[in-house]
């Protein structure tokens, strides 16, 4: 099993979700994160003092999936999240050694 982590622009989440649904991925976990990278941040002003904010709001998606579905999953995310402008984000693929469904105790492929 593999875990695919994608860091994307927040407003692209629903599009990515749709794309994943299309290819039969019906489970994922999402969280709000802050990203720092080439995309430059912005400046905030409070009583004339300028603060530069480097961290931008991003959404992290985690999908655990069997090896044979990794490529289609990565592709789906790529299609859903792509805008072509800086800050579109990253996809990382990582090994998962065991998966368990808490409700049933099922393991491996059955669990996700």
């Amino acid at each position: 099993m593999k875990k695919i982590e994608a860091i994307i622009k927040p407003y692209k989440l629903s599009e990515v979700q749709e794309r994943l649904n299309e290819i039969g991925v019906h489970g994922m976990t999402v969280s709000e994160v802050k990203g720092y990278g080439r995309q430059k941040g912005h400046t905030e002003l409070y009583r004339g003092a300028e603060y530069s904010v480097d961290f931008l709001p991003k959404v992290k998606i985690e999908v655990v999936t069997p090896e044979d579905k990794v490529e289609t999953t990565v592709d789906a995310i790529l299609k859903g999240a792509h805008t072509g402008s800086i800050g579109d984000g990253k996809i990382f693929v990582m090994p998962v050694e065991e998966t368990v469904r808490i409700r049933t105790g099922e393991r491996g492929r059955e669990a996700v």
Partner: protein
Amino acid sequence: MSRVISRLKALLVTLAAMGAMAGPAQAQEVADAIDTGDTAWLLVSTAMVMLMTPGLALFYGGMVRRKNVLSTAMYSFIALGVITVQWTLFGYSLAFGPDIGSVIGGFSMFGLSGVGGQAQGTIPAALFMAFQMMFAIITVALISGAVAERMKFSSFVVFIILWTTLVYDPIAHWVWGGGWIMSLGALDFAGGLVVHISAGVAALVCAVMLGKRHGYPAEPMPPHNLTMTLLGAALLWFGWFGFNAGSALGSGSLAATSFVATQVATAASIMGWVTAEWLHRGKPTALGVASGMVSGLVAITPAAGFVTPLSAMVIGAVAGVICYAAVMAKGRLGYDDSLDAFGIHGMGGAWGAVATGFFATVAVNSAGADGLFYGNPALLLKQLTSVVVTVLYTLVVTYGLLKAIDAGMGLRVDHEDEIMGLDLSQHGESGYTM
């Protein structure tokens, strides 16, 4: 309407005095002397109406997405700054200065010249001016509900200066300042026409001309903080007692009955809206309570000083249902009035103005008139006339103004800025840093 009376009374007294060859100074004394109780109530009312605009900022601010909360509030707060200055310099003069052709006041009271501590009716002239000022401020702030989450701040500032001058000031003059609607005898106790219909219609024009928010309606845009919206609605309710009962321009029976009508209609409208949505969607909601509240307050505004408590109950209950239906209809009509400024203020105000034509009775206010249900169809006709003309005038002038501003400086923020949120792009701030 009470204003009509006090002005008529003053006129009559003056005429009588002249006929009797008494000096006008003495007549003045009879008609106009400051009453500390009336003044106390109007001082408080004016402060309460001022508070409505920040209340509106919260009401609206809670309904937008988090990234636009400050920019939405800013539309209201900047109105407090800009319109106060406009009104002080020339707005009050245009609306309440000596009448020119039943259409507009002149510039003779520029810079509030002559508007001091002397009595006008039973309160200081300066206080009457300040009370009216707060109405002008909140009216433009109401419009902002339609443009939230996408209109450029600078363009909004320019828009409200022009709109107040060209739309609000004339209509206020027509209805309360001695203009043609006043002469016609249509009733508008606290601003159904002047405030709500004008703001509601302007809001509709703005919504259509600005176009939809990016992502609307596909993307969900739920309110980011409904507790803020509830608080804002509560402050509106509180302030509205000043708005409506203060429009009696004094403390006494009329203020009390207007106060009661306001309370009863608002409560009934909450029940109306909530029942409608409970039946229609299966659940009563907090946003429904807040929305029903404002709908009722809007609808009773033109009628507050003319109707019985039970009539107020009917007006309110119907208002809740009508406004709920209007907000539902928006989806099908396809414009994006972000926070339903038209659905609530335009429709609620129109219903209230018409309802006044049905429910008004001289039993409540001898200075008013009887409505259809009290055997007088004429009033209804006057009400309808005043509504239609206000709608048309507002529509045309607002359209022209927006066209001009769009050509000159653009109405909408950049696409990128809209996505980033107006708080950051227009104001360089975040509402929350939690």
